[in-house]
């Protein structure tokens, strides 16, 4: 995997211009590292998309007020000690529209999402809470379907829903049904995972083809009138994580690639560990349907959400065993090494394109938008 094809562009550009461009790039990086300022007076959709706007909101509104050493780490789940026991604790709200889509529904998402945030933290998911916000007029039949799906997903992941809450809001105050789950897991002894621990030379893996959940949901809305044989990848990762962690000691960090997709997770790792992540475009598993839809809409699958895929950062020695464990696990058949960690340029994700060029893969501001140009 080489970062750029230097063979061709041997000549150096005029010294002055390169120096000036270099200065600009350094200035930009300084700006990017500064605590961002929230300029908007009102919340926009971008603040919920998991990209730059979300991070800015968190940095500007939440952390300064609620921050503490645990919250500040911004990992998938908080690691706590309660009564001498090491626990992981996490929460997510689910507001997916439509509620039902090929391969899943809001119910199994709500279970798997929280199970996965616990699992990728190195915990064994155990207990979940479920908070429902229902819109007046929501069909009881649909609620029953959602709850049944939660029950199946919980059973599959080996967790129990032990506490819950139901609120109803007036018609127009929600979009059918929103679900929040929080989850508790016990940390697997001896395991310490952190995005910040990625080191140059580590390999970066994904556990399967990317973007299937996001594309499925986008198409299920029906507005794009696109017909593709694609189903959500929603699945619990706890089994796969447990197998991986027990077999491979050299796993440094895991993240489930949800909102913002693999690109966002890689950026989070690059920033947390102050390293660069270099991805080989050709190595990233993407199904033809996801690729086709993304092409039609002008969006990049790297930014499209998964709900049952994770990114793993593994020490050089552990890479091959890790790949074997992942591929041997159901749902991990297409796991792949997609890149590696490098030292420079710190905080950036680079992509070696199929075409042989190199480019940045930055955080998006908000959701990737279908575009015409």
């Amino acid at each position, binding site marked *: 995997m*080489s*970062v*750029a*094809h*230097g*063979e*061709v*562009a*041997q*000549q*150096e*550009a*005029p010294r002055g211009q*390169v120096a*000036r*461009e*270099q200065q*600009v*790039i350094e*200035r*930009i990086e300084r*700006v990017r590292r500064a605590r961002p300022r929230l*300029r*908007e007076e*009102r919340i*926009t*959709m*971008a603040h919920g998309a998991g990209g*730059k*706007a979300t991070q*800015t909101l968190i940095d500007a509104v939440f952390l300064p007020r609620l921050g503490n050493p645990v919250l500040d780490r911004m990992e998938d789940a908080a690691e706590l000690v309660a009564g001498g026991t090491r626990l992981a604790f996490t929460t997510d709200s689910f507001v997916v529209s439509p509620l039902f889509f090929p391969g899943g529904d809001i119910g199994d998402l709500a279970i798997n999402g929280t199970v996965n945030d616990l699992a990728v933290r190195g915990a064994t998911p155990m207990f979940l809470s479920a908070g429902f916000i229902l819109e007046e007029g929501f069909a009881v039949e649909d609620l029953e379907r959602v709850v049944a799906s939660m029950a199946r997903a919980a059973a599959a992941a080996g967790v129990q829903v032990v506490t819950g809450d139901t609120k109803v809001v007036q018609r127009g105050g929600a979009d059918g049904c929103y679900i929040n789950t929080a989850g508790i897991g016990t940390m697997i002894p001896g395991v310490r995972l952190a995005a910040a621990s990625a080191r*140059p030379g580590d390999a970066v893996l994904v556990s399967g083809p990317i973007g299937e959940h996001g594309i499925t949901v986008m198409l299920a809305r029906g*507005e*794009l*009138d696109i017909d593709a044989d694609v189903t959500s990848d929603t699945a619990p990762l706890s089994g796969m994580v447990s197998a991986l962690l027990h077999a491979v000691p050299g796993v440094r960090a895991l993240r489930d690639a949800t909102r913002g997709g693999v690109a966002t997770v890689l950026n989070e790792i690059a920033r947390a560990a102050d390293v*660069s992540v*270099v991805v080989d475009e050709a190595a990233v598993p993407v199904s033809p349907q996801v690729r086709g839809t993304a*092409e039609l809409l*002008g969006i990049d699958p790297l930014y499209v959400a998964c709900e049952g895929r994770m990114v793993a950062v593994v020490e050089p020695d552990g890479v091959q065993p890790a790949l074997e464990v992942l591929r041997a696990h159901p749902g991990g058949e297409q796991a792949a090494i997609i890149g590696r960690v*490098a*030292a*420079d*340029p710190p905080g950036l994700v680079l992509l*070696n*394109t*199929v*075409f*042989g*060029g*190199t*480019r*940045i893969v*930055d955080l998006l*501001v*908000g959701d990737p*938008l*279908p*575009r*015409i*140009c």
Partner: protein
Amino acid sequence: MAGGTLMRYVDEFRDAEKARALAARIAQLCEPGREYKFMEVCGGHTHTIYKHGLEDYLPENITLVHGPGCPVCVIPMGRVDDAIHIARQPGVLMTSFGDMMRVPGGNGSFFDANARDTNIRMVYSPLDALAIARQRPEQRIVFMAIGFETTAPSTAMTLLRARAEGLRNFFVFANHVTIIPAIKAILDSPDLRLDGFLGPGHVSTVIGCRPYEFIARDYGKPVVVAGFEPLDILQSVYLLMRQLAEGRCAVENQYGRVVPWDGNPIALQAINQTMRLRPFFEWRGLGFINHSALRLREEFAEYDAELVFDVPGVRIADPKACQCGEVLKGVLKPWECKVFGTACTPETPIGTCMVSPEGACAAYYNFGRFSRQRVREASRV
């Protein structure tokens, strides 16, 4: 991948090995010590160049200059404000392409307006806006039409369909622009030296290649109409270099698989049937350009949002710091703008070039902004 196998018309034109061979040929054609500047007129090319890291293949003395061909980037702020004004009228559901959602007007973008009080939603096609109008007779559906001649036919066909169906709750806010007057404006601009043009491939499917002949004939610059895969662009650069090496100056069509020499007559007729040239139109950064945009014909007055709704039409001066005009004309590289990457970023765009993925600033910021030097060193590890 090519040969007798099935064509997909995409991956075949992304082959790194062929690119390396082509790059070597391009390098061979470089006269030592001479600087080459080619403008890719089209933002789609700019996007491809950065997205695929195409500059890695070009010798440092060939510079690609990004042109005005991003329909989003050239929309002046006042038009965005006009659209938001229309969207605020009772019962209006405004629709446009996803590209427009983050473009800043004088008082924020469509997303910001939605956060206040409007309902502006994305569509994939103007036909989707028409479908909404059919489904929601109680609402007034306005489609904000943007785009060059590539997109204008779809608006035209949608208008004809709306009239055929007798729909009375569908309106078009027309912002279609035409590419030739913009190219002419750039050619006439005193501060720019160019060695040739990569012609806009998709516009040319509609207008054909003839309209570029004046560039070769009157201005003595070679033009190659180029496709959008990286090998298309690289080949087009090669063809430009070869014309220069051979001392020729012509319009060539690299993208013959898609672009007919004479364009699409049905599309041209549909445009002509529904729209007419405006006497002038403001282009962001470039100022007013004569005969450079389209509006609806009088026969479609009842579909014309500019007539049906009371549009303020206030001209908003670009922010002082904004150097989009220079970037659009290729005078400045994106990173040479004083606010690039600091005050002006994709999350806080000051100029439109930072919004559209086709905008030169956005393309450079999102894809190209890193030190090739340092990466090269790092990759040796």
